[in-house]
């Protein structure tokens, strides 16, 4: 699968990213990650926030690559996870875990299956790793998106 293939089957649309939107989303990623560590929240709530950061990282990487997800298509979370090896070079070993985190989120949202402490910790770990990979990729290949904009 390539990003072009995902475009052809309607899972992605072409998109020209702007510095303003990318920087707004980078701030949102930091906020999600910080909120995911707030003591006193349930495992489920912290997991949701860490998972949100995963999605936001995947989204920014996709935008920078010139695409955006078709959010009216069913399964756009799955599409976002699918793009990670293509946009940020996520290795298969981590991709398997990210896709499993997506399934945990579905099972929690739709059947009330609980989120255990270690699934929260793993989601947070994966989200942080994606943020690092994303920032490195933006700095190396899309520096214009990180510059001050007017």
């Amino acid at each position, binding site marked *: 699968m390539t990003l072009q293939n995902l475009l052809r089957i309607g899972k992605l649309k072409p998109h020209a990213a702007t510095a303003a939107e990318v920087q707004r989303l980078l701030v949102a990623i930091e906020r999600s990650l910080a909120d995911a560590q707030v003591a006193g929240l349930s495992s489920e709530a912290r997991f949701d926030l860490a998972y949100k950061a995963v999605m936001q990282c995947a989204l920014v990487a996709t935008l920078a690559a010139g695409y955006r997800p078709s959010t009216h298509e069913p399964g756009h979370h799955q599409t976002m996870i699918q793009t990670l090896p293509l946009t940020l070079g996520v290795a298969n070993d981590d991709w398997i*875990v990210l896709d*499993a985190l997506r399934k*945990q989120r579905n099972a929690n949202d739709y059947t009330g*299956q609980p989120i*255990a402490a270690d699934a929260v910790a793993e989601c947070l770990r994966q989200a942080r790793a994606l943020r690092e990979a994303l920032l490195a990729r933006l700095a190396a290949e899309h520096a214009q998106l990180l510059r001050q904009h007017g």
Partner: protein
Amino acid sequence: MPSLADQLLGQTRSRVLGALLLHPDSALHVREVARLTGASPGSLHRELRALAGMGLLVRQEVGRQVHYRADTASPVYAELAGLLRKTAGVVDVLREALVPLADRVGLAFVFGSVAAGTERTGSDVDVLILGSAGFAEVVRALAPTQEALRREVNPTVMSIKAFADKLVAGDGFARSVAEGPRLWLLGGEDDFAELAAHREAQAARGHRR
């Protein structure tokens, strides 16, 4: 060690029946059966014809191809599928995948629709893993089984104490798992009864306080 189903039915026969009876919605061509079971198409032709002759499989001609599927109207279909579910199917494949983590997994079992035998095409295999193993290592260990089982495997991984605490708290998930059917991968009903008894003792102490 060969599975119980392999020993009872022979390896090829148990795998063929597992591939078809545990997926009653799919009709497979002999080459697909060969890929799923690792048996040669030559020997499978004979095997499939024999099983159809016994009334366990239905033979269908689709254009110029011959497909086989489970005959769910067979009087022994439910019992045979149940036997395979516990041996040749899900249980053996998942148990084998968990072996490398066995020292960190106290109890592991399949729950939900697959354990109850009410699964449909597309149902995930829900697995509860209780012990000190981490979420990521469990997911990585179980990932390769998804192809063999032709189902997504969705593990819930937590410590024994975390699950016992949920039982004490009357958590809906823990209760439904405790009350529903289980297919054991590691550990067994005795261990689970012990966990539940421990929980009741804890709850009783809680009431006295």
